């Protein structure tokens, strides 16, 4: 070993490449603040559109409601006339049937109050008429 010159390990020609000790995070895409701002912008636009859409829907519903409100008196008047006619006919029939019973008041309400209570049972005339035959 004495005559043998030391074979020293040497760096490669040009030296070793630089040692990477710093963290290397290349920039990818927009920053967090930018993404937050973009998402916020999209949401703000959505809420803005929704605000107007809800307002419009509300107006459309109001339009339908008022269309109904305007014809309501007409419908009630027509139904009232029919109800009055039927009730009148029923009382007339009752009068004819109960004419022999003394003290009978035709069409008398079963309640003591003055509030109007519609008939709960439909008064059907046909089976009470003369000549009615059930098929």
């Amino acid at each position, binding site marked *: 070993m004495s005559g043998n010159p030391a074979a020293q390990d040497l760096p490669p020609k040009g030296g070793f490449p630089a040692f990477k000790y710093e963290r290397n995070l290349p920039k990818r895409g927009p920053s967090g603040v930018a993404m937050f701002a973009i998402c916020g912008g999209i949401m703000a636009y959505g809420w803005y559109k929704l605000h107007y859409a809800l307002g419009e829907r509300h107006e459309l519903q109001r339009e339908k409601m*008022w269309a*109904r409100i305007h014809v309501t*008196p*007409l419908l009630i008047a027509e139904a009232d*006339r029919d*109800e009055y006619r039927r009730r*009148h006919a*029923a009382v007339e029939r009752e009068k004819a049937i109960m004419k022999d019973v003394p003290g009978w008041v035709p069409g008398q309400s079963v309640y003591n109050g003055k509030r109007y209570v519609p008939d709960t049972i439909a008064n059907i005339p046909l089976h009470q008429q003369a000549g009615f035959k059930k098929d």
Partner: protein
Amino acid sequence: MVNPGYRHFKGEDWVDPTPPPASLPAVEEVGSTRAPLNSASYFIGSVCSEYNEDFMLCKNESRSPEHCLLEGRKVTRCAIDVLQKIQANCRDQFRAHWQCLDANNQEFAQCRAPEKTYNRCLFAALGWKKAIPDAPADRSLVYE
């Protein structure tokens, strides 16, 4: 008329054929289906507002049908009058609008095109204008 599932239960059996008492003044019924009434509703509401309000105030006094027969006749006559005026002046536009309503489930929003010509015709012929009460002033009208 026979309802499904009620074959034994004929609708005719429930019709009372008795005419109204002679003491009652005769009135023609409107006899219109939903779509023409819907189409004319805003004009019935604006032209007949006095009769309608009178009738509803009367109904507020008593719900009995015989309490408001007089007011009800006025309401019906006024509505018939409005419908006849519409028919006389804007028959085709009216028909286009109510047939559109009939085909679109009575949705006004689906029939804006025929409604515009109909409203314009009525305004030109009779000066009637559609207006939804309490519409927000800061927005454009939903029917224009």
